[in-house]
């Protein structure tokens, strides 16, 4: 028995030595490139599905081998999986969930010859590891656009006499009261208000990134509360389905939900991760450095809107969205223009945000530049965590 165990261990060690030959900064032939992907859930989560589709698209386009690992917990499981992928010969490993970050860093320290890329993380720019990188996109611009579509819908409902201008209360199902979520709903709200000035918004948190029942319940609560349009930042079909059942218009996230909600789905914003993944893989092939902190934009095609569902959206939505998008691209429209919102009745003139996440909770960076809250400028992950007037957070 001992001999067999010893033999197995020896065999295992040999295999792992052979696997770990890759090196950072040296070009790798395409056929030797292997990309490892770590996902929190599987394709039943709209969030992970969005990543999985992008991963397949990027790898197939570049013709490299890849491994997808789904259902990887935000714990030691993530480190173990990353380490296994590294030993399995992956040159670059990507993880998709915020909670994976500290485990990806742990793995990056142990495998300096492998590149580790992490979406939505905050620590790459302060951690100083040459092989650890963060990425995100200026999704607040996409949310803003989706908000414009929602505002047009509200205007149409007013014009049709379904609601009065005073009843333009909308609802938002958020995950956690975290900067990424706050930035998301605030930009969405500012988008709505840019076309429908009377709007107010109620936000409820599920305190979970993925909980279909809670999200459904949250949406239902908002609808019962008199919200006439719902959007969400949570990853299941909970809120869209609740809206379809109640016949309340819904602005979605992570991808179109028109198949399940043909009567209520208006439009969805999403991050297209394929450009980043292509960039990351191409950098490995060329032996180039991957940016520490990469922010995708509308220009890089990282921020996208789905097809507008004409059945539910207001007339002229497509044209208006094109116009606002052009404004965002040429800089004439700024989402977080501080003159468009107030905090406690005052316009913001200065704000310190906790951009350098050192675990100290100390905001240290002035983020108001030239009258605009410079979101995703000092680092890719959002840090807009201001509670602005017009948005009410419901207690649970």
């Amino acid at each position: 028995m001992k001999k067999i165990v010893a033999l197995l261990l020896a065999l295992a060690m040999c295999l792992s030595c052979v696997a770990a030959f890759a090196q950072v900064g040296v070009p790798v032939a395409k056929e030797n490139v292997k990309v490892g992907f770590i996902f929190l859930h599987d394709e039943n989560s709209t969030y992970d599905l969005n990543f999985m589709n992008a991963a397949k698209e990027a790898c197939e386009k570049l013709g490299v081998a890849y491994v997808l690992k789904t259902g990887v917990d935000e714990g030691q499981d993530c480190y173990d999986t990353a380490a296994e992928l590294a030993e399995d010969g992956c040159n670059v490993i990507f993880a998709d969930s915020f909670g994976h970050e500290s485990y990806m860093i742990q793995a990056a320290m142990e495998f300096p010859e492998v590149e580790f890329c992490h979406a939505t993380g905050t620590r790459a720019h302060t951690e100083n590891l040459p092989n650890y990188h963060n990425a995100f996109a200026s999704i607040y611009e996409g949310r803003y656009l989706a908000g414009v579509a929602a505002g047009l819908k509200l205007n149409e409902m007013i014009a049709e006499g379904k609601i009065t201008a005073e009843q333009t209360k909308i609802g938002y199902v958020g995950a956690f009261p975290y900067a990424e979520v706050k930035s998301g709903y605030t930009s969405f709200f500012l988008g709505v208000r840019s076309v429908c000035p009377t709007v107010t918004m109620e936000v409820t948190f599920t305190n979970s990134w993925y909980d279909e029942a809670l999200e459904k319940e949250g949406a239902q609560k908002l609808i019962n509360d008199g919200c006439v349009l719902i959007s969400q930042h949570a990853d299941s079909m909970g809120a869209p389905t609740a809206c379809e059942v109640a016949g309340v218009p819904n602005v979605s996230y992570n991808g179109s939900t028109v198949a399940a909600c043909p009567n209520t789905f208006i439009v969805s914003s999403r991050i297209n991760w394929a450009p980043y993944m292509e960039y990351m893989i191409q950098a490995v092939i060329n032996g180039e450095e991957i940016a520490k902190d990469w922010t995708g934009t509308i220009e890089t095609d990282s921020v996208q809107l789905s097809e507008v569902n004409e059945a539910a959206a207001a007339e002229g939505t497509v044209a208006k969205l094109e116009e606002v998008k052009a404004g965002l691209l040429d800089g004439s429209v700024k989402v977080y223009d501080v003159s468009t919102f107030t905090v406690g009745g005052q316009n913001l003139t200065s704000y310190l945000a906790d951009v350098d996440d050192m675990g100290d909770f100390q905001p240290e960076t002035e983020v108001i530049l030239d009258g605009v809250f410079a979101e995703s400028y000092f680092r890719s992950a959002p840090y807009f965590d201001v509670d602005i007037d017009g948005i009410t957070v419901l207690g649970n």
Partner: protein
Amino acid sequence: MTRETKSREPLVHISRRGAMPWWRAWLVRAGAIALALAVCALLCILVTGTNPLDIGRTVFEASFKTSRKFWVMLHSVAILLCISLAVTPAFRMRFWNVGGEGQALMGCLASAACMILLRDSLPNWAIIVCMVLASCLAGAIWGFLPAFFKANWNTNETLFTLMMNYIATQLVAFFCVVWENPRGSGQIGIINQRAPYTQLGWLPVVGGNKYLLNVIIVGVLCVLMFLYLSFSKHGFELSVVGESENTAHYLGIKVKRVIIRTMVLSGALCGLTGLLLTGGNDHTLTTTLVGGRGFTAVMVSWLAKFNPLWMILASFLLVFLERGAGDISTNFGLNASFSDILTGIILFFIIGSEFFITYRVSFRRHGGHRKEAIAK
């Protein structure tokens, strides 16, 4: 009074067997596993169209391909085994402790609390001592409460321990928000990963292998538990209480004390598992950290007939199959639910085999009616 009735003999007749020789029992179990694997292989072939040898190799490689896979597997076995050992003394006493999940989670919570709250004031060794004490105490309290109510008012321990799991989960969820990092995220991440607290409260790495210490600790616990149950006076007492409380009274055993003492031990060991998870391996606190192993442990303990040494085999088997099923899903591009289906099939057969070991199934011999006398 006697009366005659016509009754139809049932087609299938189930009766309790006498003791089956151990080798036959194990033959039945091995047969069940082989059958389960065959059904799984068949399902895989139908779904993926790959040949069964590939599938077999995938299952094997999931645990043995690299030394890391081997150690991760060994570590998973150790954690599952540790909770199984913890719930076993209670089971021997016929106290159905299904609260291993919550008791272990409380151990995780207590360890995390020490790592976070004491890191500014105590040296590393003192933090670790506090973690050991706090995690055992937290688990012990979670074991004590249902035992106290059972001993004094004969409450239903299954429901009580089950409900305690939810309280533990909610407590952990609450503290995840209290200690969240960064703010608003509801997550703690790796505790004490960065300077100035680098690795404070992390259990030491032995022999350059981060999984080894936990494996050794559980190995020692396993032997101790075997000795405790088989050779100590406590072990004898709790078995007697399990067989019959009246006999226990007659023998002068203080039943209440045995119930509470055993559950405190059970809970403390679960709490210790929490320490191994939070202090030794994961260095974090989440509501899913124990990951259902508190319930799987119930099955491990049953399958091994409450014998700590057989539990090693039972935990290995479950972990081995679960890892194999997981890799089948990823390697053949199937949904994560597919691995749950495979695990489900395997467990179904294993548990089913116990039925055939305990009961005999006979079929009706001749199809006719028969007269039967029923005495009233």
